[in-house]
């Protein structure tokens, strides 16, 4: 097995392990969260619980998708695996939007009927623990995403960033609500904090949805990568007779490029093939996770 294939497999395993760790941590944290919500009578904690629940389900879906991709990498999903990653990212975004609706509704209700919060000891303990874990998962997924861009890992680090900020909001809100509990206005701190979380959630969901939707619709490559392709065509300018078309698209973390060009008809097939191989290898070296096809053509290809 070539070294690149081995490291690719290892990377997929690492992705899968990271997402599974996130799911298990999220699932385990749900039980104390429920108790904390009941004891504290906080709309923000309730929202946080619902948010965590939906995110945990979405993380589970992401784990299933990555597992499917790793197992079927060379057989059943030669072209579709990238889309599976995008669909999982949309599931995460769906969970975020649902959470936003719940948080916003609950916060508005609490503004209309202000209620002082109850015992916050357990909630502080649980949220602080979750905050530390979320910060750790955020950093871990961010470094994975930097090593190899992928919609799933991209959505995962954004998710943990959102969760970390949400934890900080919850802790701050609980401490402030408790410290100023003698004042009537302190009852509004809890729903105000909940609205801050909801805004952050909506922003993250928007980013994930736009990235995944464009990729699902086979958006062409970014301009910077298009310029890299053109640069290669300029470098090999004397080796082909005519350029008849370029097609490019992203699918998940993969980049697909098709170049249609005409070669000197006096050249032997073996010479053309050798030239194609050189161009393909050169371009694939310059564009990460790319698969390049150079097809001989004698007329324009739309």
């Amino acid at each position: 097995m070539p070294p690149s294939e081995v490291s690719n497999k290892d990377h997929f395993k690492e992705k899968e392990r990271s997402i599974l760790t996130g799911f298990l941590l999220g699932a385990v944290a749900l039980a104390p969260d429920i108790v904390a919500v009941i004891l504290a009578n906080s709309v923000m904690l309730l929202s946080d619980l619902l948010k965590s629940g939906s995110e945990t389900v979405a993380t589970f879906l992401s784990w299933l998708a990555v597992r499917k991709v790793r197992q079927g990498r060379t057989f059943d999903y030669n072209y579709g695996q990238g889309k599976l990653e995008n669909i999982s990212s949309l599931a995460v975004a769906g969970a975020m939007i649902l959470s936003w609706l719940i948080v916003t509704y609950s916060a508005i209700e609490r503004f209309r009927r202000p209620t002082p919060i109850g015992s916050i000891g357990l909630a502080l303990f649980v949220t602080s623990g979750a905050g530390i874990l979320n910060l750790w998962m955020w950093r871990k997924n961010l470094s994975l995403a930097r090593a190899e861009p992928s919609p799933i890992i991209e959505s995962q680090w954004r998710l943990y960033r959102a969760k970390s900020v949400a934890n900080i909001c919850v802790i701050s809100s609980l401490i402030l609500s408790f410290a100023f509990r003698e004042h009537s206005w302190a009852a509004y701190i809890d729903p105000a904090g909940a609205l801050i979380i909801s805004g952050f959630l909506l922003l993250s969901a928007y980013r994930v949805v736009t990235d995944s939707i464009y990729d699902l619709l086979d958006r062409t490559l970014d301009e910077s990568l298009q310029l890299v392709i053109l640069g290669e065509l300029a470098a090999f300018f004397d080796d082909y007779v005519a350029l008849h078309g370029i097609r490019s698209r992203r699918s998940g973390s993969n980049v697909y490029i098709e170049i249609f060009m005409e070669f000197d008809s006096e050249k032997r097939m073996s010479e053309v093939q050798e030239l194609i191989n050189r161009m393909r290898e050169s371009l694939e070296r310059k564009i990460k996770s790319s698969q390049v096809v150079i097809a001989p053509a004698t007329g324009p290809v739309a």
Partner: protein
Amino acid sequence: MEFMEERHEAIVIVGLRGRMDSNTARLVEEKLLGLIDAGDSRMVVDCAGLDYISSAGLRVLLMAAKRMTQTKGKLVLAALNDDVKQVFDLTGFSSIFQIYGSREDAISAQQ
């Protein structure tokens, strides 16, 4: 995007004005390749009014240069602004085109 065409003896001078991007490149492609296919074998592309060129625009110029080579003709560029020149340098296009500082220099080179 404006496309202007004039002639100086046997040389066709094409003036480009505005932005050459994915929205406008198709029009330029049709016009440039149309001129070459019609038999114009000496061409100056005057880029003095060209504010911006994207990868789609570069692709059209590359196709035109190739078509011109097939017909044993010659296509040269003139008066690229600094931004456009930077894109040419970055992609290596400066090495595949003859680029002149002014339209007059480019016409002289074609004579």
